[in-house]
C-alpha cells in the first residue's frame, strides 16, 4: 500500500484544514433529501475530496458504493449498476452514499453519462457525493444545478510540512525540516503529491537527493492565469497552453473575447492580426488535414498576441468567458422557425435556403399570403410566426 493510501484520512478529525467543507457535508447529509440530493466536492488534486466522502460514510455508518471515472460510464452500465442501487436498501449498514469520483472525467465517449447522472439524482433515495477538479465546465452545468457545491482549498505549506513530518516519524525515516519544506513547496498544496514524493525519497539519503522545486508537477493552469500572463507579459510563450485543459481552438475564443479589454489602438490591430494568422493556419489544418501547421497556429496565438504590445502591462483585468458561441446558440434557437419556413420556400422557388434566409425581409410580404402559406404547408406555429412579422 502506498503511503498516500495508508495515511488517507478515515475520519473527519483526520482531515486537516477542511473544517468548513466538513460542516457543509454534515449539513447536507442531515438535510437529505429535503434540500439537494447530491453534493459536489470540488478543488485541486490532493486536497482530500475523496477522503472527505469516505470519512462521511464512516462517521455516519453508511455503506459506500463507489464508481471511478475509469469505469465505463455509459448509459447501460449506469442503469444496471446504479438504478437498482438507488432504490434498494443497503445490505448491512443502515444506509448508503453513492460516490462518483472525478465526474469531470465523464467525457464525450460516455454517451449520455451526464444526462444519466442528472436522472439518477432525480431518482435516488440515497445521497450522492461527486468529486471533481473543475466544477465550472459547461458540460457539468446540468449536474451543478441539481447539486450542493462545496469547495476544497489547497493546503497551506505549514500544514503539509507538519503532516510530512508526522508520517516520516511514524515510518521511521527522519528527514530534516528543510528537506520536507522543499517537498511541500514543490507539491503546490497537493498533499497526495507531497506524500508520494516523500515516499520516493524514503530510501535515499538527503545529501544524495536533489529536489528541484521549480520542477512543478503538471498542474493545470487555469485559463485566467494563461490570459493574464499572455496579455500582461512580453514573452515567447510557445508552451503557455501546454498545461491547459482547453484546446487551442477554445483558447483562441478566450483570447478573441478579451483582447479589447487589454489592448488599444496599435496593439489591438497587431493582436487581431496575429489571431487572424492563427486562424488562417487553422483553416489550412482543417482543409488539408495538415496538422504540422498546429505549431504556427500556436505561435501566432501565443507569442503573436504577447508581442502585440510594446511594453508589459500592469494592473488587474477581469477576463470574461467567450460569449460568441453562446450568442450563436441562442440565436439558432430564435431563428429555428424562420429556418424551417425558409427551407420550404427555397424548394418552391428553386434556390438555396441560405439565400432565402438572407432575403427574408424581402420575401416576407409573399409568405404572408394565405395561398402561399397553404402551398408551403406551413404549420400553425409557422403561420403565426410569419403573421407576427412586421
Amino acid at each position, binding site marked *: 500500500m502506498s503511503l498516500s493510501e495508508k495515511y488517507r484520512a478515515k475520519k473527519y478529525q483526520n482531515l486537516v484544514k477542511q473544517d468548513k467543507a466538513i460542516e457543509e457535508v454534515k449539513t447536507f447529509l442531515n438535510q437529505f433529501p429535503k434540500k439537494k440530493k447530491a453534493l459536489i466536492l470540488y478543488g485541486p488534486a490532493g486536497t482530500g475530496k475523496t477522503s472527505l466522502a469516505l470519512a462521511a460514510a464512516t462517521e455516519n455508518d453508511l455503506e459506500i458504493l463507489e464508481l471511478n471515472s475509469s469505469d465505463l460510464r455509459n448509459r447501460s452500465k449506469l442503469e444496471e449498476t446504479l438504478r437498482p442501487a438507488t432504490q434498494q436498501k443497503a445490505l448491512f449498514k443502515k444506509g448508503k452514499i453513492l460516490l462518483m469520483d472525478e465526474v469531470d472525467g465523464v467525457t464525450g465517449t460516455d454517451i449520455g453519462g451526464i444526462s444519466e447522472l442528472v436522472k439518477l439524482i432525480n431518482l435516488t433515495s440515497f445521497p450522492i457525493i461527486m468529486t471533481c477538479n473543475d466544477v465550472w465546465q459547461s458540460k457539468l452545468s446540468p449536474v451543478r444545478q441539481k447539486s450542493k457545491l462545496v469547495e476544497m482549498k489547497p493546503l497551506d505549506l505549514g500544514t503539509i510540512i507538519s503532516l510530512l513530518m508526522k508520517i516520516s516519524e511514524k515510518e521511521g525515516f527522519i528527514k530534516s525540516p528543510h528537506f520536507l519544506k522543499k517537498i511541500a513547496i514543490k507539491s503546490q498544496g497537493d498533499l497526495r503529491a507531497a506524500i508520494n514524493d516523500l515516499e520516493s525519497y524514503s530510501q535515499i539519503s538527503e545529501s544524495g537527493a536533489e529536489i528541484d522545486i521549480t520542477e512543478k508537477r503538471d498542474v493545470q493552469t487555469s485559463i485566467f492565469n494563461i490570459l493574464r500572463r499572455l496579455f500582461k507579459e512580453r514573452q515567447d510563450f510557445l508552451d503557455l497552453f501546454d498545461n491547459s485543459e482547453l484546446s487551442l481552438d477554445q483558447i483562441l475564443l478566450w483570447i478573441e473575447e478579451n483582447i479589447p479589454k487589454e489592448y488599444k489602438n496599435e496593439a489591438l*490591430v497587431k493582436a487581431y492580426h496575429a489571431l487572424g494568422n492563427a486562424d488562417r493556419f487553422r483553416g489550412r489544418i482543417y482543409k488539408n488535414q495538415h496538422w504540422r501547421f498546429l505549431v504556427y497556429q500556436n505561435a501566432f496565438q501565443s507569442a503573436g498576441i504577447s508581442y502585440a504590445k510594446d511594453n508589459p502591462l500592469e494592473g488587474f483585468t477581469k477576463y470574461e468567458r467567450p460569449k460568441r458561441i453562446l450568442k450563436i446558440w441562442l440565436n439558432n434557437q430564435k431563428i429555428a422557425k424562420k429556418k424551417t419556413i425558409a427551407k420550404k420556400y427555397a424548394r418552391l*422557388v428553386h434556390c438555396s435556403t441560405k439565400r432565402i434566409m438572407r432575403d427574408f425581409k424581402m420575401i416576407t410580404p409573399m409568405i404572408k399570403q394565405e395561398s402561399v402559406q397553404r*402551398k408551403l404547408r406551413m404549420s400553425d406555429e409557422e403561420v403565426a410566426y410569419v403573421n407576427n412579422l412586421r
Partner: protein
Amino acid sequence: MNQTNIWTEKYRPVTFDEMVGQQEILKRVKSLVQALNIPHLLFAGPAGTGKSTLALIVVKELFGDKWKENYLELNASDERGIDVVRQKVKDFARTKAIENIPFKVIFLDEADALTKEAQQALRRTMENYTNTCRFIMSCNYSSRIIDPIQSRCVIFRFKLLEKKDIKKRIDVITQNENLNLVEEGFNALYESSEGDCRRAINLLQATASISPDITQDMITMVSASAKPADIKVVLDYSLAGDFIGARDKLLDTMLKDSVSGTDIIKSIQKEIWNLQIEPSVKVRLTEKTGEAEFRMTEGSDEFVQLQALLASFVLAGRGEA
C-alpha cells in the same frame, strides 16, 4: 390551383422564347435539346441571370408533362455533405427514364459550394451514372469547379442582365398585375437589383404589396428596409474608437439576419466610400478590407478576420491607419 402568387415563380419563363438576355447560350442549348441528347452542362454566372430557369426549360422541353419524374433538383449549399448528394442521386438514377430519352436530368445548383474533395467524389458519381443521368450544374464562378468536372461538361457563361432585358420581364408583370410603375421607379428598381432579375422581381412584389402605384421613393424605401446588414453603424462605432461596441453590433447584425462574413465584407467595401474620412485613408482601408476578404477564404472563422478589420478601422478613426 397550380399558380402560386410568388412572382418569381409565376413569371418564371417556361420556354426558350420567353427568356431574356443570354441569346448566344439559348441558341446553343436549344439545338442540343432539339437533338434530344444533351451532354453534362455547367452554367456559370451571377445570381438571377437565368441559370435555374434555363435548366427547368431544358427538362420541360425534353420530357414534356413527364418532366417532374425525370428531374431531380439539389442545392449543394443546402445538402449536408456529399454523401447525401450521392445517396439522392443513386436513388433517383435507379429507375429508367421514359422511352424516347435514355437519361434523366439532375440539376445541382450552387455546385461551387462543394469542397474540392466533395467535387472529386461527385465526379465519380457522374461517371457511374453517365448512361442514365445527365448533370446540369450551376455555379457563380467556374474557377471554383475542379478541372475534371469542367472538362466533362459543356460550359455556358451567363452574363449580368442588361437594363432592357430586365425591363422586358418587369413589363410583363406590371401589365398582368395591373401595376403602375413610373420610369424613375423602374430605374430605382434596376439600380438596386444590380442585374439580378430575381431580386428585381422580389423587390417589385414587396413594393406592390403596399400599393399598386409604385414610385421611386417606395422602391428605395422597401429596398433599404429589406437590406439585411446595417454595416454603417458598425463602422461608425469603430471610427469613434468603441471597438467592443462595434464588435457586439457586428455579431448581432450577422446573427439576426443570417448574413455571412463574406457578405459583411462586401457591404463594408462599398460603405467605405460613403464615410466622412480622408480619401487617402479610404484607399488604405479598402486595401485592408480586400486583405481581410482574402484571409477569410483561408481561415476557418470569419468573425476573427472581421474583428481584425474592425481594429484597423479604430486606428483609422484616430488618423493613424
